[in-house]
Structure formats: structure tokens, C-alpha cells
């Protein structure tokens, strides 16, 4: 499965989500798309160190669409509070991706023929790291 963080500008969310991904799942690949600012300068060195010490895998793409084109995941679940109905995906298969957009000012623009499955997450006041940790834990329990 792929845990995707899109448009992140800070290093802390990268550290938190990559750690969750590497600790919770055996077959999980952390994907970073379109990292900006501190995410590039501080986040990427943290990600590479985490991957080496925790034996994790990751991918870095300039956009979410590059990821979809190159990897072609089976199902793509996207956290979107305005479009989603369910709190989180029922289950995630090995070739599915779950996307956490981390840019509050810019909407993630998908250019794909693939059907996107939106879910609304848990609450407005949670940080992305907290929300992602609860969602991923729920998914882990169902595996």
C-alpha cells in the first residue's frame, strides 16, 4: 500500500507520517509528492534517515499525477472534507493508495482517468499528523 503526502511544506508531518507508515505496516511505501520549502530542506534528510534506520521504502515525485502515472495504484483514496462521505476507507489493499493533502491554501489538482474515492476524515481541529495516525491505525486494525 502507498501512504501519500501531497504538497507538504513542513518537515514534521513528513517525519510523523513516514514513521507511522514504517511502524504500522510491513508492506507500506511512503510517497512524497510536490514537497515545498522546509519539507525539501529539512523533511527529506529526515525521511532518508528514517528509511535507512527503520528499513522503510519511499518515493518522491514532483506531482501527485506523476505518482499516479508511474505507479498506477488500483484504488486511490483521498482525504477531502468537502467531498468525502465516510470517515475513512474500509480497507486498503497492497496496491491501493491513500492520499493526505497537506496544503490548506491550494487544492490538489488531479489529472487522471482513475476514479478517486474521497473520504472526509475525522475533524476540522485535528492536525494532519493526528488525523492520519487515527485513520491509519483504524486501517491497520482491519487488515
Amino acid at each position, binding site marked *: 500500500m502507498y501512504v501519500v503526502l501531497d504538497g507538504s511544506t513542513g518537515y514534521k508531518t513528513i517525519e510523523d507520517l513516514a514513521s507511522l507508515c514504517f511502524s504500522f505496516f510491513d508492506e507500506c511505501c511512503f510517497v512524497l509528492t510536490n514537497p515545498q520549502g522546509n519539507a525539501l530542506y529539512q523533511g527529506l*534528510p529526515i525521511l*532518508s534517515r528514517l528509511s*535507512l534506520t527503520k528499513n522503510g521504502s519511499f*518515493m518522491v515525485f514532483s506531482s501527485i499525477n506523476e505518482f499516479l502515472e508511474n505507479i498506477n495504484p488500483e484504488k486511490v483514496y483521498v482525504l477531502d472534507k468537502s467531498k468525502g462521505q465516510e470517515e475513512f476507507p474500509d480497507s486498503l489493499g497492497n496496491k491501493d493508495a491513500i492520499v493526505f493533502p497537506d496544503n490548506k491554501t491550494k487544492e490538489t489538482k488531479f489529472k487522471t482517468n482513475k476514479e478517486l474515492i474521497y473520504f472526509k476524515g475525522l475533524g476540522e481541529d485535528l492536525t494532519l499528523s493526528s488525523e492520519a495516525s487515527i485513520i491509519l491505525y483504524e486501517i491497520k486494525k482491519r487488515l
Partner: protein
Amino acid sequence: MKGLVIYKLNSSTYIKEFYDICREFGIKNYALVSISSTDCLPGINYVLKQKEDINVYFFKDLNEFYERLRPRALVTLSKYGNSLEGSFDWLIVGHLDRLDIEQYNIKVIKDETRLNIIAGTTKFLIESHGAREL
């Protein structure tokens, strides 16, 4: 050519140099596989911080590379190979053993030069692609 794979080359210098080769030849995908030493962190961080349109992959092993990227034809260079026939999409360089080659059906292309791994790869890319004069 779709991409270049660096396999079990635990050296920052190699990781940087091969990335630069990707940039020079317009290779859009760069995979680091079975890189396990923290000595490689400067090389990995160099690669990640470049603002090029090159997708970077970091995988635990060759099996994961295969499952996630599904290469069509993977080739490597060796003194004991055959001449290049047909096309390929990924080139892998590094410490492959016979088991890797058999298990993943890697085609071995003859490299008769006495050049080091970086120069030999560059020469192969120029000859096989005629991509660019350096």
C-alpha cells in the same frame, strides 16, 4: 529508457554521480535499491534536494522494486555478457549475483571496456541511446 537502478552500492559518491548521469541523459526515474549504510545519507540527500523532474525511489530489495515498478526488460553490464539485442526499459548497476540475475530475469550485456562503473555506464548509455554527446 525508463530508469536507472543503483543496487547495493553503498557509496554517496556513486549515488550522486549516477543521479547526475540521469540528469544528463534525461532519464526520468532513479531507483536506489538495497542501500543500507548511513554513510550514504549525504548522497541520498543530495539526490532528494535536486529540483529536477526525476522521480526518486528507495526500496528495501529487488523484489519490492519489481512489484512496485514492474519493469518490462531489465539489463545490466558485465564482462561476461552478450551483445545488446532488442530494447530495454531499466538499467541496473551494482553488486548483482547470479541468483539475482536468474530470479529477476535480468539480461546481461557485455561490457568489454576497462573503465570504472561510472564511465562504463556512461559509455554504454551513449552507445545504446546515442542520446547526447558529453
